[in-house]
């Protein structure tokens, strides 16, 4: 991930993060420890460490590439600085499999609830990832749906863009709201390891093409968490590895995704669902080939006494098993999977979750059993 040529950038980023962390720490320790002073300093900084540890058993051999999704221990450090109309957001993930600056974005809020972000961000065309990002504690299930996996987890849809994003929320009526978000910037390339977005710790922009993404959502309660909306994203992905280009018979993949989602949060019931129509054009010297498929999921959760939450998720797809893109570049994509789980929230911001799933990829059918501890500290 680090290279000597980009050491100055890495050092600059490390300095910004460490300075910000020190600032946050000073605010919390220096003022929070004094009786009567604010526990969160001048409310301008927030540092959260998302931790998770997992034990699992798979009945089929694990993927050829070790997935971060399956890493035993993952730490995700989040730093937010909020000063008047300016924001800075950094998210750094560390596991045995990877260490990566997942998000690093600077924002300006010219009017209330409209923020212009510059940097590397999560594309707004994903229903799950814009809700949970990398913080595993905040997602009820251990796993995320296969169609929502990150690029380095052999995900099939680019999830990171480095560029500009505008995120705006407007009040509609007395309580409702409308969210509009759009992002544009440097997109993803394809290598023999899957999708490869811009790595801020070792940035290479050569050969990258424009990526676009957007969402429009209706919020029944402006300050609530329920949302229903439409998603769209478009990526032009050059294939950089010759062997992959030969197998795909393409040196460029144009991917357009149309989606819809419904997230409904009741008192004890919660529904998270999305469906994506993935349209692709694989073009090379010998011509081009179009293929498309549909993939989606619905996760239903119910809360019980004693901080227990039971959930079930059904993932399914149509024509994905026939797609060259899936067969060649993403053979571990779950064509369908049924998941059941039980989560127990205990103490403050800690949870234990056990999950069982039966999935089918283009290569095999398998059962997965997982036990996870997750937390958000402090």
């Amino acid at each position, binding site marked *: 991930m680090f290279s000597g040529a980009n050491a100055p950038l890495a050092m600059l980023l490390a300095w910004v993060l460490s300075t910000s962390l020190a600032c946050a720490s000073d605010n919390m320790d220096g003022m929070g420890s004094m009786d009567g002073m604010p526990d969160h300093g001048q409310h301008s900084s927030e540092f*959260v460490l998302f931790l998770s540890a997992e034990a699992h058993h798979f009945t089929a051999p694990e993927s050829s590439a070790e997935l971060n999704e399956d890493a035993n221990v993952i730490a995700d450090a989040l730093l937010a600085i909020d000063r008047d109309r300016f924001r800075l957001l950094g998210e750094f993930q560390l596991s045995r499999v990877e260490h990566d600056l997942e998000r690093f974005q600077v924002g300006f809020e010219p009017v209330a609830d409209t923020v212009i972000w510059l940097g590397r961000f999560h594309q707004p065309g994903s229903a799950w990832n814009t809700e949970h990002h990398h913080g595993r504690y905040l997602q009820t299930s251990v796993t995320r749906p296969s169609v929502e996996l990150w690029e380095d987890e052999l995900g099939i849809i680019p999830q990171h863009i480095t560029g500009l994003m505008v995120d705006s929320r407007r009040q509609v009526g007395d309580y409702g709201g409308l969210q509009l978000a759009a992002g544009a910037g440097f997109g993803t390339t394809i290598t023999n390891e899957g999708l490869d977005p811009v790595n801020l710790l070792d940035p290479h922009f050569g050969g990258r093409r424009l990526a676009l993404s957007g969402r429009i959502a209706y919020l029944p309660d402006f300050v609530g968490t329920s949302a229903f909306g439409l998603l769209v994203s478009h990526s032009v992905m050059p294939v950089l590895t010759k062997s992959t280009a030969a197998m795909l018979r393409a040196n460029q993949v144009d991917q357009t995704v149309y989606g819809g989602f419904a997230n409904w949060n009741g008192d004890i019931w919660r529904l998270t669902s999305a469906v994506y129509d993935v349209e692709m054009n694989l073009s090379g010297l010998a011509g081009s080939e179009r293929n498309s498929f549909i993939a989606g999921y619905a996760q239903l959760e119910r809360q019980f006494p004693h901080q227990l939450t039971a959930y079930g998720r059904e993932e399914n797809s149509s024509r994905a098993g026939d797609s060259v893109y899936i067969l060649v570049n993403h053979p571990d994509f779950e064509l369908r999977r049924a998941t059941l789980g039980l989560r127990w929230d205990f103490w403050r911001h800690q949870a234990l979750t056990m999950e069982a799933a039966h999935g089918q990829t283009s290569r095999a059918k398998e059962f997965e059993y997982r036990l996870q501890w997750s937390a958000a500290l402090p």
Partner: protein
Amino acid sequence: MERGVAVMSRANRRLSAHVGALLLMMCCSLSALSADRLVLIVSAKSPVTALNSPEIQKLFLGLTVITHDEVLRPLRNESEEFIRQIFFQSIVSMSESTYERRVLALTLQQGRTAPPLYRNTKMLLDAVAADPALVSYAWAADVAKDPRIKTLRVLWHE
């Protein structure tokens, strides 16, 4: 003194006792009346004259509320357990765990920060008085005689 008491008739003594008790009750009642109202406060220098319930809820969730071109900043009053309970029940209208999860999600999703907590009323009032952008809440009795503080509305009363 003894003499004075001696010359006071039984009826007068009874009347004095009743008047004294009544005054004491009135004082206690006024104090209780003031203490039993939680009010939304800003600095007397603040241009803010009113905030409605949705704006207050947004503010204390960490969302942006701008009035008179100024970004308002909330301070949570945790000087008493009772005030803490009122905050969740009447101001943000959600359980403590839901509130904490929501604020955590907003940090993760939008880079927003949680409102700071104050456990000392005097320090809270000093902070609010000094900064026109700050908004908080306190017992009416604690701010009634403080000219530096402006009361916007009653958030809760018994």
